[in-house]
């Protein structure tokens, strides 16, 4: 048996053909020279071998169907516990502390924001790198070495655990190596853009300590714009213009300012409702545009998107490379022969024919980004987020993180809604997968 084994192995050890033939000759010659007795029982084993083959085939079928069974069991147990928990509240509600009112809406919007940002950043970068590696042949030794270094680097980056990327994101994007002031400090972040700050005053009429006789005076809030978060507190003066966030949206109102201890209080209700106590301290509030930008990024949407970018960039590069490799070389050669420049070949010939493959890879990578929990958990921590993100730096949570949050709690009710959340998450991911598989199937048919 052992002799048989070595015989089977010998051509596979990568020996040169000469060596293997001489060995084969030697082995053929051996029985003759040794005069080993001819053993017929060793030859008549074909029935044994065939039964072995059949047994092995049966074992294979059993293990392969085990994988199907696992999937069916996994999906089945999730559906059994998750489907009853599905409700409209779960989809559109906020993560309330009572399980029957809790919902996924902020997490859903967070996933949408983070993954859209992530796709916008990662796709150009990843496709660009793949084009560089596949379509541009290096002309000198240095370029060749750099390209092979990049290639090696990408294959190794694909194996780095995502939790490590989370740690890198925490240092590089959330706190930016502590080069800038903390985003949560009182002075605010070092640099910001797209935010307007206001001092908020309330009117005198509603102040219980200055009862002006009008018991049901409406409480009104006036916003006076200031330059920055750290600007000195505004002292209200009569005749100042302020914004009021009324029922009809923002309106400009002329305000009056009095010192209630020294000045005379007017009896006119309308005037009083526009009057501000000029000794009061206002609250500073901010109005942020959707593109609000600050350095460091803090635990917001952008930091999450960039961290996920680190996770899926190698995946996108590798799948795009495979798609580009599948484009027949004759197409490129034809375009080059017509006088196209390398970029024109890429843009007009290679990319259009590789698009289905690239899209398949991109969709699968995005579905990975949607399901990725660990890096987001590391950078955001377990936080209680009550609203959908409003701007790029807003704190956010994502669906898998919210689900993790619910699984972690001891109460069974939370486990039930977690199962419901998982069903929603899986529905999204399976849709993504199905689209990717469809695109690939169509592409294969076209190539045939």
């Amino acid at each position, binding site marked *: 048996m052992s002799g*048989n*084994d070595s015989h*089977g192995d010998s051509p*596979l050890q*990568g020996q040169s053909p000469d060596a293997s033939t001489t060995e084969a000759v030697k082995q053929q010659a051996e029985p003759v020279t040794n005069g080993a007795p001819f053993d017929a029982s060793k030859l008549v084993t074909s029935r044994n*071998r*065939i039964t*072995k*083959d059949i047994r*092995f*085939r049966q074992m*294979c*079928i059993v*293990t*392969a169907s085990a*994988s199907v069974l*696992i*999937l069916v069991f*996994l999906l089945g*147990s*999730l559906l059994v516990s998750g489907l009853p928990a599905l409700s409209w509240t779960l989809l559109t509600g906020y993560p309330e502390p009572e399980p029957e009112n809790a919902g996924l809406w902020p997490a859903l919007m967070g996933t949408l924001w983070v993954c859209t940002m992530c796709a916008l950043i990662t796709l150009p*970068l*990843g496709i*660009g*790198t793949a084009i*560089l590696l596949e379509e*541009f042949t290096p002309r000198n030794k240095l370029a060749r070495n750099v390209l092979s270094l*990049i290639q090696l*680097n*990408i*294959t*190794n980056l694909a*194996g*780095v*655990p995502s*939790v*490590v990327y*989370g*740690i*890198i994101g925490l*240092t*590089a994007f959330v706190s930016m190596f502590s080069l800038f002031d903390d985003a949560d400090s009182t002075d605010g972040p070092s640099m910001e853009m797209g935010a307007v700050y206001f001092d908020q005053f309330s009117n005198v009429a509603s102040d219980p300590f200055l009862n002006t006789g009008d018991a049901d005076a409406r409480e009104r809030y006036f916003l006076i714009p200031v330059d920055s978060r750290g600007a000195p507190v505004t002292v209200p003066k009569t005749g100042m213009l302020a914004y009021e966030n009324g029922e009809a949206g923002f309106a400009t109102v002329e305000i009056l300012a009095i010192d209630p201890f020294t000045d005379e209080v007017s009896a006119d209700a309308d005037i009083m409702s526009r009057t501000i106590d000029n000794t009061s301290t206002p609250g500073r509030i901010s109005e942020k545009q959707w593109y609000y930008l600050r350095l460091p990024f803090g635990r917001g949407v952008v930091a999450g998107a960039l961290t996920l970018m680190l996770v899926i960039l190698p995946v996108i*590069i590798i799948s795009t490379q495979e798609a580009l490799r599948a484009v027949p070389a004759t197409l490129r050669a034809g375009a080059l022969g017509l006088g196209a*420049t*390398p*970029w024109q070949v890429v843009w007009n010939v290679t990319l259009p024919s590789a698009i289905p493959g690239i899209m398949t890879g991109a969709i*699968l990578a995005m579905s990975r980004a*949607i*399901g990725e*929990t*660990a890096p987001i*958990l590391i950078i955001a*921590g377990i936080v209680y987020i009550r609203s959908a993100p409003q701007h790029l730096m807003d704190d956010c949570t994502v669906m*898998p993180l919210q689900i993790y949050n619910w*699984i972690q709690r001891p109460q069974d009710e939370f*486990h039930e809604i977690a199962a419901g959340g*998982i069903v929603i998450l*899986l529905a999204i*991911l399976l849709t993504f*997968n199905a689209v990717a598989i469809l695109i690939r199937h169509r592409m294969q048919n076209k190539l045939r």
Partner: protein
Amino acid sequence: MSSELDSDRRLPQLEQQVQTLFVRDRRSLSWVRIREKGIFLCLIGCGLFSLLITGSIIFVLASETFRFFQFPDVTLSNFFLSTEWNPLLGNTKSFGIWALISGTLMVTAIAMILALPLGLITAVYLSEYAPRRVRSTLKPILEILAGIPTVVYGFFALLTITPFLQWCYSGFNVYNAMSAGIAVGILCFPTVCSLAEDALQAVPSSLRDGAFGLGGTRFDATVKVIIPAALSGIISAFLLAIARAIGETMIVALAAGSRAQVTLNPGDEVQTMTGYMVQIAGGDVSNFGMEYYSMYAVAFTLFVITLTLTMIGNQIRKKYRETYE
């Protein structure tokens, strides 16, 4: 006579036209050249960005780990030799990484006992035995299994596998290494399977035909010819799967527990390196304290282990690809 005059008059005009055409062409050519250069530089920038990522990973981990060892309570000998990991509670803090590594190895070993044989046999079936129709249904199923988020596997481990294990044998803790290991094994199974199948498919069919020609059954061809020929690819698939299991986070964070200890009992609670990182990041540990930096030291250890495994795996795979291409 008149026609000559005409042509004389026309000639400079034509010449001018031709000249402008050439000038425009030249201009457009130089524009094309600039565009080509610019785009090429952009692509180079994209490529260098991936190098920058690796650089920053190493820089961040190394510098923050260095800062961790600057704390007076932390010593290198304690970190590398002790088996007691007790960073949060008590007066005597101890940072012995072996407690976390043993937990990680425990979960990984359980996962691999499950995933490696199953994955390899399924890969052999898919590559050598399965009819085309079975193949075309099994492969998408494996892809779906591979695409399920890890937090879902964590849920499955904590709320389905653990109760089942406790029903089988009551000695299992609520958090135990066994159930996390089984879930990680299910997670790694598609990885092993598809990578091993790639390796088996890469074996030239001439070897297969040779084995059949010598009268071998499919089993003979597979076990004696194809698997030895694809061995390097299979080993690389195993190494990559082990690296993936070591780096797996959400399953162990949910199902394996949070008590770092060296134990051989699979029914007991263990903490892995990734589980510790999640515990620190999710808990309310003060930023920039000793515990916070210990997270970086653990991450660095994890990074070195997984990077070594991935690099060896990729190197082996590259080798076998070269042999048969």
